């Protein structure tokens, strides 16, 4: 009955897509589906076994699912040839700054929270 897990995911994805269309919101439908499922599971109280099995299986092989979209880079080879330096620099500097800011800020916030107790 593993397919029941898939069915739950697809139904919530559909609800997300319908909601996004109805509200004309610039948010991906599956993301809304994830939020709906999160709150549904909190209210329901536990994660049904079929859903957990299917979800964990899917997330374990998540990286495979990126391959078809990633191969689409071949359509952008001229962009990559022209802008590779700017892209690599932008991504590197941004990753470095983001790591630094998040780690520094979270340490500060957690310390001051503990300090109040």
């Amino acid at each position, binding site marked *: 009955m593993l397919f029941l897990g898939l069915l739950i995911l697809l139904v919530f994805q559909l609800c997300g897509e319908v909601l996004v269309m109805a509200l004309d919101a610039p948010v991906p439908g599956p993301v809304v589906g994830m939020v709906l499922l999160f709150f549904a599971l909190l209210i329901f109280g536990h994660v049904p076994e079929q859903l957990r099995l299917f979800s964990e299986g899917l997330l374990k092989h998540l990286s495979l699912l990126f*391959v078809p979209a990633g191969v689409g880079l071949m359509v952008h080879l001229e962009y990559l040839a022209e802008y590779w330096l700017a892209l*690599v620099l932008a*991504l590197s500097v941004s990753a470095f700054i983001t790591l630094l800011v998040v780690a520094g800020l979270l340490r500060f916030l957690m310390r001051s929270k503990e300090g109040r107790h």
Partner: protein
Amino acid sequence: MDFWVYFSASPLLWLIVTLSVFAFSMELNRRMGGSAFLHPVLLSLSIIIIFLLLTGTSYERYFEGAQFIHFLLGPATVALAVPLVDHAERIKRMWFPLFAAALIGAGVAVVSVLLIGWLFELPHAVLMSLAPKSVTSPIAIGVAEKIGGYPSLAAGLVLVTGALGGSFAPWVFKLLGGLDDEVKGFAIGVTAHGMGTAYAFGISAKAGAFSGLAMGLTGVITAFLLPFSLEWLGFL
């Protein structure tokens, strides 16, 4: 030759190519000790792209087969709710520091990359593909589509960010010094999504769990706030 003409036009061949190249890449990566630059996804992309170019196959033709794998990104995004529910207790307890760090981190990631890209005068569609680069791919692909970037370019840039995040993390942690595993994991998760989470599990299970949480929070925050703020700023 007729054989090739027939099978290269059927979805079956490209589905088999995708799965077998990925299996080969996973195995090669495992034997090379799991290096971030031989990431199975980056490796698979390169091999498949070279194969398609050599055989003169268009991306559209390839995607007719690969779409069956691509389709699962939707349900996989919804499935991210399951690990988030597992951490619901922790989120409730520490919600303010975690939420603030994810919100500001997501903002810093987007603004810094857009600013540098803008300095280099990148075209608008490339900037819009760069913007969601710190977010887990299924969300980034959806966001890029929504804001006028190229989903496939965005997917590639997300993967490069994942590899970079894992390589920079040890330097940054050394620079700051004396960080808890939950802080380390969370910072990697905000910066480098799922690939960062895989790296964080190498530090400790605690770092991995917090990285997964950060990935989910950052994904949701970016998915909801990025399109609205770009719209509000008049970029769309």
